[in-house]
């Protein structure tokens, strides 16, 4: 049973190691960090404890050595030799070792039958291995020169320290196994948890991709990364749906507004082919068909232009532009139309500067003037104001025509929307859409107001920052 589990674990580990998935990497990273932390902590602790042991050992040896040197001063060489022989014969402490070394390196008294040459000839602190029946024991010792040319070796077998080291090594090994297992487990659990939290996001986006556009990822309002991700994706899905609805709406209108003239055109051509019309009538029919086609082409151009402008972003790189001459040019262009319709076109402008595209802004002013003049009642006044309130530039164009009912004021900006009462008149239904697109593209806004009676259009455009 245990073997089966172990082999399953190993397989799992191999799968993890070979896997490139984020959760596998996450699990491995966590396990790795866990192990690293454990190793650092263990190594630090081991080093600190070893140091304490070593210091203690040295201290004991130093005291012991000082004791014996004192004895040498009091009772001389012979006394020291006797003392060492006694201590060696019946030791108080198993671990203490002594040796009196003669001037030629000859061992005079003590435990050792032999000593390595470098120890015999050395001085100060030394370490060497002692071989006896128990095996090999590490000895830490101090060599002290005595007055008559001989040397005293005082040392201790570091058996306790060795035992400690073995213990530490063994414990470390088991702890390492435990840490690795635990780290792996924590890593695995974390990876599982992350995967689980992403599971619903994954599932929902897959389903949305497959066409269920109304689905949204559940938000838990915890404001953690996952929740923010969910909110961001939901906002994105909302925007996509909005755009799709827009496209659908536009497609419907295109279908209607372009199909009608296309059908008319087709019927006209059909008629010309089947009915034997006179040459004169034939030309008239052809002219009408051409005019119809031109109108269609114009609508397409306007539509393409609108789409392009909508796709542009407000550019701080646009050149600075004097708005007044542009507006006056537009007023001059439309003045004859106004006077033909018996309308007074009254323009009040001041110099003001903004950043933008001259052609587009001219189109904006032209479209608004065109509308105002088209819908103004004969004999009334159309007013145009261009002013700068220090914060923004305003272009306000008012007419005294039929106006637009408040409920329709948002709707008229949509593509191809034309109010019922004007369906018969000339125009593509794209004029105001274009105006709004241009205003937005320049970072501005447009509002329709009641001019009691009539319509007042207020365009707000950001003024250029004077450098």
């Amino acid at each position: 049973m245990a073997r089966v589990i172990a082999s399953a674990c190993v397989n799992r580990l191999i799968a993890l190691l070979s896997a490139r998935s984020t959760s596998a990497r996450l699990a491995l990273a966590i396990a790795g960090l866990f192990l690293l932390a454990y190793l650092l902590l263990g190594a630090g602790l081991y080093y600190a404890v070893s140091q304490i042991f070593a210091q203690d050992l040295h201290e004991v040896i130093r005291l012991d050595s000082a004791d014996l040197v004192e004895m040498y001063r009091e009772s001389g060489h012979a006394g020291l030799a006797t003392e060492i022989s006694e201590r060696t014969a019946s030791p108080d402490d198993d671990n203490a070792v002594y040796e009196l070394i003669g001037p030629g390196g000859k061992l005079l008294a003590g435990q050792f039958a032999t000593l390595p040459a470098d120890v015999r000839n050395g001085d100060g602190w030394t370490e060497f291995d002692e071989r006896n029946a128990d095996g090999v024991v590490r000895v830490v010792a101090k060599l002290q020169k005595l007055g008559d040319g001989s040397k005293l070796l005082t040392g201790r077998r570091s058996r306790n320290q060795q035992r400690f080291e073995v213990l530490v090594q063994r414990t470390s090994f088991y702890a390492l196994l435990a840490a690795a297992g635990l780290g792996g487990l924590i890593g695995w659990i974390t990876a599982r948890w992350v995967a689980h939290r992403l599971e619903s996001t994954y599932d929902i986006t897959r389903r949305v991709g497959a066409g269920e556009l109304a689905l949204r990822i559940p938000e838990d309002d915890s404001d953690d990364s996952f929740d923010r991700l969910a909110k961001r994706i939901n906002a994105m899905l909302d925007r996509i749906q909005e755009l799709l609805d827009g496209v659908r709406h536009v497609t419907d209108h295109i279908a209607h507004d372009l199909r009608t003239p296309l059908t008319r055109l087709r019927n006209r051509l059909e008629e010309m082919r089947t009915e034997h019309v006179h040459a004169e009538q034939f030309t008239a029919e052809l002219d009408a068909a051409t005019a119809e086609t031109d109108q269609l082409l114009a609508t397409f151009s306007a539509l393409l232009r609108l789409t392009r402008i909508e796709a542009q972003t407000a550019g701080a790189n646009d050149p600075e532009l004097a708005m007044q001459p542009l507006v006056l040019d537009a007023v001059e262009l439309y003045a004859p139309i106004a006077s033909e319709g018996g309308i007074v076109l009254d323009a009040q402008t001041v110099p003001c500067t903004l950043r933008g595209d001259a052609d587009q802004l001219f189109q904006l002013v032209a479209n608004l003037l065109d509308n105002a003049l088209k819908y103004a009642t004969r004999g009334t006044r159309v007013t145009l104001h261009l002013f700068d309130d220090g914060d923004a530039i305003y272009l306000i164009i008012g007419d005294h025509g039929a106006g637009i009912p408040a409920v329709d004021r948002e709707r008229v900006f949509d593509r191809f929307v034309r109010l019922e009462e004007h369906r018969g008149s000339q125009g593509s239904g794209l004029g105001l859409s274009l105006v709004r697109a241009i205003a937005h593209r320049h970072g501005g806004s447009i509002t329709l107001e009641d001019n009691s009676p009539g319509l007042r259009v207020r365009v707000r455009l950001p003024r250029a920052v004077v450098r």
Partner: protein
Amino acid sequence: MRILIVEDDPHTATFIAKGLAEDGHTVDRADNGRDGLFLATTETYNAIILDRMLPVVDGLTVLRTLRGAGNSVPVLVLTALGDVDHRVEGLRAGADDYLVKPFAYAELSARIDSLLRRRQAPSAETTELRVGDLELNLLTREAKRAGRSIELQPREFRLLEYLMRQAERVVTRTMLLEAVWDYHFDPQTNVIDVHISRLRQKIDRHHPKPLLHTVRGAGYRLGVRE
């Protein structure tokens, strides 16, 4: 006049070639950029109509190569890209004019005429334009018809000047807007027609022979021809 059409869409190319041939031009055709460039550099043309999106070598590259080689033949670029940025890019590459698809043949024909004429016109400054009994003095800014002075607004003067410089040739509404008003935009209504009819009132009224003609489906023509 000898004109090269570089256009990959066979229908458009045939349509243009037919129209130009009817206008009395000799037409060569290439359906990709490489052949177009080859013809343009080995033969002599009075004008080239160049589509922007071409197989093998694109239109702007052809144009830049031509200009780089010092060839100054008038080039009209055709494109489906109507953006202002694209227009500027095309003109910068060395195009003399730029026409956005879809277009009416009349527009293309008028623009080609204008291009050919611009090259033919003597470089010396003219101070007086004359069409029939209509005179326009560019220095004193006076207009006269049959010796009788005509009062003109500044814009009307520019309009008449442009029409007289293009005498006997069709000019489209778009050409007028670009040349006289200097804005590239799409007028919603027949605003140009109103300006023309006011100008017509001033120059043709009380005269048995009108000079300013409306060309159906295309634009206007100023000239003595009926």
